[in-house]
């Protein structure tokens, strides 16, 4: 095993206020066995990612399937143990803590899943699903537990009689509300939302994104919002981080990244998003091929085999690190030939 290739990411601390969450050079290597003698090799699902999330902010993590965004989300919560790197939450390094020592932080950090069907235990009543966290963390006792459950269900827009019903009695949108209620019940400061609206119908999707935004405003919760739907990301997030093959390739304020994408990959990704306007013909940048395997990532810039700007030299030989083109813009890109930069 080798150290992560190249430092990826953003300088962790900016300004006086400490960010809620700092992720420093996180890597996750999954062992895979190949070859005749079962020689071990590794898939670099996440490769030296550094980023931060401020209090009450939404950082969106975007990229194609297989880019490592879900793995990164799980690593942040230590549901998957990162191979290298540090996770600092409220100034406390979580990496050396045992699962038992992590317990108090589990209350602070929650997760909302994509699949509203698979993520709820079909044999538990909704009241018990939502109460489980409250009981485990001993946030209330006796009849107070159910009072809290009722309050949380109300805040996500579910009727009070949901408590005694089972998940199968609810529609996909309502199930997603149950999942949100479960996360909210322990009053977290940070929630990883893993594709929370991708499985929902368009009309329900708007209801859930509005709910997530309302809750953020009322409770000042920070979200790590993992999604491949860039329209929803633009609507929801304050900042956006673009991942490709386990690495961050671009990060910055959502408006800046979407209005003036610097990385060729971000540009291609944006141009591929279907627009709900038949009269707007947009120039699509068609990418050749597909995302390479993280078991044998290309040398140099991970995007170079598909990149229209591949120069055949730097791009192939050296890994570009994230840098700011305009000082103070907090808009960073890992590319040898960014848009608007020197050619």
């Amino acid at each position, binding site marked *: 095993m080798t150290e992560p290739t190249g430092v990826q990411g953003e300088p962790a601390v900016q300004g006086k206020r400490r960010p809620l969450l700092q992720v420093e050079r996180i890597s996750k290597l999954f062992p895979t066995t190949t070859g005749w003698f079962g020689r071990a090799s590794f898939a670099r699902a996440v490769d030296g990612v550094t980023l931060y999330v401020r209090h009450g902010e939404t950082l969106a993590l975007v990229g*194609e*399937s*297989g880019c490592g965004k879900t793995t990164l989300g799980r690593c942040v919560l230590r549901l998957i143990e990162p191979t290298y790197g540090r996770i600092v939450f409220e100034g406390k390094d979580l990496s050396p803590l045992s699962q038992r020592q992590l317990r108090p932080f589990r209350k602070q950090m929650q997760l909302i899943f994509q699949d509203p069907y698979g993520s709820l235990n079909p044999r538990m009543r909704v009241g018990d699903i939502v109460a489980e966290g409250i009981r485990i963390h001993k946030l209330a006792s006796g009849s107070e537990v159910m009072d809290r459950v009722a309050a949380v269900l109300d805040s996500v827009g579910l009727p009070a009689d949901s408590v005694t019903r089972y998940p199968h009695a609810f*529609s*996909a*949108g309502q199930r997603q509300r149950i999942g949100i209620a479960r996360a909210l019940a322990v009053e977290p400061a940070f929630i990883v939302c893993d594709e929370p609206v991708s499985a929902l*119908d*368009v*009309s*329900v*999707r*708007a*209801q859930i*994104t*509005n709910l997530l*935004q309302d809750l953020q405003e009322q409770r000042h919760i920070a979200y790590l919002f993992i999604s*491949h739907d*860039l*329209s*929803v*990301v*633009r*609507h929801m997030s304050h900042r956006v981080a673009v991942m490709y093959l386990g690495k961050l390739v671009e990060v910055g304020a959502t*408006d800046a990244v*979407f*209005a003036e994408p610097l990385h060729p990959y971000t540009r*291609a*990704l*944006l*141009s*591929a*998003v*279907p*627009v*709900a*306007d*038949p*009269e707007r013909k947009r120039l*699509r940048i*068609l*990418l050749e*091929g*597909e995302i390479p395997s993280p078991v044998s990532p290309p040398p140099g810039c991970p995007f170079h085999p598909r990149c229209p700007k591949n120069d055949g030299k730097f791009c192939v030989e050296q890994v570009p690190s994230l840098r700011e083109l305009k000082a103070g813009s907090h808009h960073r890109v890992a590319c040898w030939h960014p848009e608007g930069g020197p050619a």
Partner: protein
Amino acid sequence: MSDPSQPVLSLRGLSTEVRTDRGGARVVDDVSFDVPAAGKVALVGESGSGKTMTAMSVLRLVPSPSAKIVAGRVEFRGRDLLSLSEREMQRLRGNELAMVFQEPMTSLNPVLTVGYQITETLRAHQSISRKQARARAVELLDRVGIPSPSARVDAYPHQLSGGMRQRVMMAIAMCCRPALIIADEPTTALDVTIEAQILDLLDQVRVADGTATLLITHDLGVVAGFAEHVVVMYAGQVVESAPVKDLFRAPSHPYTQALLRSLPPSPDSAAPRERRLPVIEGRVPDLMSRPAGCRFQDRCPQVHDACRETAPPWVGREGGRGARCLLLRGESEP
């Protein structure tokens, strides 16, 4: 060959029922629309709208005996599909009438090579040798953009990525130069970059072979970029049908209007970000407790008393448009 001015597929009053323990329920209710030869029609709706059941009814693949086509006509190149024998139907499927499903993993057989699965279809419908079929399979894989096709022809589905598998499905669908491909959410499980490639492929097949496409999707962005004509379904019924530009420029039905409003603007849009998205309150009515009158009444911002009593009739307008709403009745009558 059939007359190019005739629609390749024509549905008239198609109705399909599923059996439930509380009696029959019409999941597809009086559905009528046409797919012109070499045309691109999108069938749009949320889950439970009946769009997939409509496609399955056309293919006569509705699960039996739990569901049954109870009324209507389905004409494909002038033949009534509902009166064909199962044998005749089998001869048609995969040949003139092809399909692509959403799940490329579950619709491919995991224990057979992709080459076998393509040649199987070819040899079922055409009298060609094994060798010729294999050569044709390689050619097809090349055409759908699979790199090193002569090696991939021996690959198993699990060795391919999701996008590759969907290309294999496309290769199987187009192998007999069909007159129509019914594609049910072919890109829903794929990334946007791959989605764009697959939609381009459908368009290429149309240009090269004159294949019409009936695209079933819930994604209005895909509809806007791909379709020429759009049919919107809600709770088993067609609620609006219009050429794509008209539909997006001036939707007639309150449901279509609300649906378009609830979309967040595209990521590179210059429009300012709104704090909240307009939502459609409530949900699609349950199959067994659909209200009398208009099925959209409980969610409709323009609902009035008549909507609760009268089932809205289909109101056709010029330019191939039409919608099912009482509000439009006044407009069309002189």
